[in-house]
C-alpha cells in the first residue's frame, strides 16, 4: 500500500483564519479525496469538519477546492491527481468560512427565496394535467440536473473577486431562472428582475462556471446567453421596442 499527503485547511476555533496542516495517510485503489479526508478524520483528526452525503456526485455537499480547482471531493479520484506533491484541500473561498472545509452557503438559499416562483398555465386536460413533448422539456431537464454544489458560484469572478453578492445572483441562479423561463408551462415574466436586481449584466461570459460544473450543465451557452439575449431583445433592441409599442 502506498501513501499520500494531504495539505488540508484547518481553521482555528471560532471560525478565525487558520492554516494548512499536512496529513499523510495510506491510500488504496479507487480512492477519492473524500475517502482520504474520512480516513484522516477517523485516524488522525477526529474533529476535522467536512460536508458529505451521497459519495456519488448526487447531492452536491462535498464541494471544496482541490489543488486550487473547485471540485466535488467524492468525485476526485486520487489517480487523477499528482501524488508526488501534497494534495491541497481547502474550502470554497467565495463563501464565509465556518470550520475547516465547511463554509456558510446560506446566501444561496436567500437568493433563491427572492426569485419568482414557478407559475404554470391552466391545465391542458380536464383531469388537471398537462401535455408536454419530451423535446420541449429536454433543455429544462438539463438545468434541473443541478445538484446545488455551488461550485459555479465559487468560481465566478463576479462573486469571488468583486463580491457582488447583493447585485448578482450568480450562475447557479441564472441556470435556475433559465429552467423556469424555458419551462413549457411557466407563465411568469422574469426578464425585468434579471436585468435589474438579478444583475445578469455583470456576467461577461468567461465560462469559468461551465468548466467546473460537475453535472456538465452548459451553464453559459444554454442558460445565460439565451437569457441575456431575451433581456437585450426586450430592453435594448429598438426594433423590438417599437414593435411592442405598436402591438400595445
Amino acid at each position: 500500500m502506498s501513501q499520500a499527503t494531504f495539505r488540508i485547511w484547518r481553521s482555528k476555533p471560532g471560525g478565525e483564519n487558520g492554516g494548512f496542516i499536512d496529513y499523510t495517510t495510506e491510500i488504496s485503489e479507487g480512492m477519492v479525496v473524500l475517502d482520504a479526508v474520512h480516513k484522516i478524520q477517523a485516524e488522525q483528526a477526529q474533529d476535522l469538519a467536512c460536508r458529505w452525503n451521497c459519495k456519488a456526485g448526487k447531492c452536491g455537499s462535498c464541494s471544496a477546492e482541490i489543488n486550487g480547482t473547485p471540485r466535488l471531493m467524492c468525485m476526485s479520484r486520487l489517480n487523477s491527481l499528482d501524488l508526488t506533491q501534497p494534495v491541497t484541500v481547502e474550502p470554497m473561498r467565495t463563501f464565509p468560512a465556518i470550520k475547516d472545509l465547511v463554509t456558510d452557503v446560506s446566501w444561496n438559499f436567500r437568493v433563491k427565496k427572492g426569485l419568482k416562483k414557478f407559475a404554470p398555465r391552466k391545465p391542458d386536460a380536464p383531469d388537471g394535467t398537462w401535455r408536454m413533448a419530451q423535446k420541449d422539456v429536454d433543455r429544462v431537464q438539463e438545468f434541473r440536473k443541478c445538484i446545488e454544489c455551488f461550485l459555479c458560484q465559487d468560481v465566478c469572478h463576479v462573486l469571488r473577486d468583486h463580491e457582488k453578492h447583493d447585485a448578482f445572483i450568480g450562475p447557479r441562479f441564472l441556470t435556475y431562472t433559465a429552467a423556469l423561463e424555458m419551462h413549457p408551462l411557466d407563465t411568469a415574466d422574469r426578464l425585468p428582475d434579471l436585468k435589474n436586481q438579478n444583475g445578469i449584466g455583470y456576467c461577461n461570459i468567461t465560462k469559468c462556471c461551465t468548466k467546473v460544473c460537475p453535472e456538465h450543465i452548459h451553464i453559459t451557452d444554454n442558460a445565460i446567453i439565451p437569457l441575456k439575449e431575451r433581456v437585450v431583445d426586450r430592453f435594448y433592441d429598438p426594433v423590438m421596442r417599437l414593435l411592442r409599442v405598436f402591438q400595445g
Partner: protein
Amino acid sequence: MAAHATYTYDVLVIGAGGAGLRAAIEAAGTGVSVGLICKSLLGKAHTVMAEGGMAAAMAHNDDRDSWKVHFADTMRGGQYVNNWRMAELHAKEAPDRVRELEAWGAVFDRTADGRINQRNFGGHRYPRLAHVGDRTGLELIRTLQDHTTYLGVTVHMEHTVIDLLRDGGRAAGVVAYDRERGRFHVFAAKAIVMATGGAGRAFKITSNSWEGTGDGHALAYRAGADLIDMEFIQFHPTGMVWPPSVRGILVTEGVRGEGGVLRNSEGRRFMFDDIPDNYKPQTAADPEEGWRYTQNDKTARRPPELLTRDHVARCINREVKAGRGSPHGGVFLDIAWIKEKLPDAAAHIKRKLPSMYHQFKELADLDITTTPMEVGPTTHYIMGGIRVNADSQESTIPGLFAAGECAAGINGANRLGGNSLSDLIVFGKRAGEYAATLARASAQPAVDDGAVDRAIANALAPFDRGTGENPYKVQQDLQEAMQSLVGIVRTEDEMQEAVRLLAGFNERAARAAVDGHREYNSGWHTCIDLRNLLDVSEAIARSAIERKESRGGHFREDYPEKVAEFATFNVSTRRQADGSMQVSRIPLPEMPAELKQIIEEQKQ
C-alpha cells in the same frame, strides 16, 4: 441551568427528505406555524439519491394498470404482512400526489403523447414508475424544497435532534444542537412529525449516507413508541463492489428495467434457475420474452432479473458463495449486451441511465455501454420503523407522527422499488395534515426543563471524558458485527452473538471520548449518532430472532421456509421502564373481503 424553549411551533417536522418536506408543505398550507429541522443542508437528504422513480398507477404506459393492481403488487411484494390499509391508501393516492408535483414545477420524462412516462421496475406488474432519467429523487426533493421556500416554513438546517420531550403522555418538543456551533436549542411543538429516513449505517456495506443512523426510530423508541417489523431490512441486489471505496453505492434497478441482465462467472443468466412459484405466472419463459418486456411489449412477461429485491439479492449471494462470482466478489450486470438488439445502444444507455454511466465512468473507470459492471448486495432500506395509524400516521405516542422510511407498515417484509418515493408524498401529506389538525385543537404542551438538562448533559459527556474509546472505531465494529451476524442470511446462534456484542458496544459507547471543540466536530457527531445505531441494531437483531421463519428481507438459514402462523402478526419492540427492550407480537388487523378478493384476482 433552566432551559427555555428557544423556538415554538404548532407543527415541528424533523427531517427534510421527501416525507418531511411534503408534511411541512401540507401543514403550512393549513395556516399553522411550521418548523423544519434537518441534519444536512436543505436538498441534501437521502431522497436526493433516489434514482429509478416513484410508483403510481397512472396507467399512462399500460391502461391495464389501476390502484388495485398496485395494491396487490405491494402486498405480494411485502409477503402479506403489510398494513393493508396503508397499502390501499398508497395505491389509491399516489397518482394524485405525483400529478401535484408537476403543478409545482417537476419535469418528468414524457410519453409520446406528452404525459408523464412510466418505467418497469421489479415486482410491479405494469410500467408504473414516474421518473426523470435516473435522478428522480433529485427532481422530487428539489421540487418540494423550492415549493416550501414560498410557504413561510422556518427551516433549521444542520441541526441534529438528540431527544424527544414529553408532557405527560404526549409529545411536547425536542432538544437539538446546531452542528455549526454546537449550541443546544429547545423546540416546543403541539405536534411533531418524524421523517428522519433510514438506518442503513448500522451495516458495513450500505447505499445510505452518514445521515442514515436511524435517529427517528431511536428517538421514538426511547420516548416509548412501538417499533414494528425491524427484522425486515432490504438488501438491494445491486450495489457497486469495486473499487473498495465505493463498495455499497447503489446501481439502480433501472439498469435491469432497461434490459440489463445478471450473469455469473460462467456467463450463465442464473436468475432463470430459481423463480419462486408465486411469481412463475408473471415471469418470462426465456431471455427473448424478457427482452421484449423491457421494450414495453405488453404481451411479454418480465425477466427474472426483475423479481423482488430480496430474492435477487439471495440468488447473487448464492452464486458468489458457490464460487461463481466476479473477480471482486459480486456478479456481472450487463447492459452493454443490448447493442445486439438496438442500433444506437450506447447513446440509448447514456440517455436512459446518465448518472449510472457517469458514476461508473468516474468512480470505477468503467464504460457501462461496453463492459459489464460488477455488482453485489448492499444494505439499502429498512421496512421496519415507527408503528403508526394508517390514516393519520400518528404513532403510539399522542402528538408524535411519523412518515417515510422511519415509519413502518406499508412495505411489510419487502419494499418494491419505487414504492418509497410515492410513500413519502402520500404519507408525508397525511402526516402533515393530521398533525396540523391536532395542533389546531391543542394547547402548547409544557417543556420539562429537567429532561432538557439531562439530554444536554448526556450529549456533552464525551467531551468530559478526556480519553476513552474512539467513536469511529466503535461504529466500525458495530457495522462489521451487524453485517456478518444479522445480514442477508441469518441464524439463531449468530444473532444471539450479535446481541451479546451489542451489549459490549453499548458499554464502549458510554466510554467514548472526543477531542476539540463543539463546533462542527465530526467525532462528537459520531458519538451522538452511535446511541441511535445501537438501539436500532438491537431492535433489528431481537426482532429477527423472534421471527423464526424466512419472509421477504428476512432470511434464516435455520428456518428457510415461510410459515403460515408468522403471517398473522408483526414483531414489535418497545422500551421497558428499566431500559430493557421488550419484544412482542402484534396481530395483523383483518383485511376486508373486497381487498382479499383483489389479491385473489391478481394472483393469476
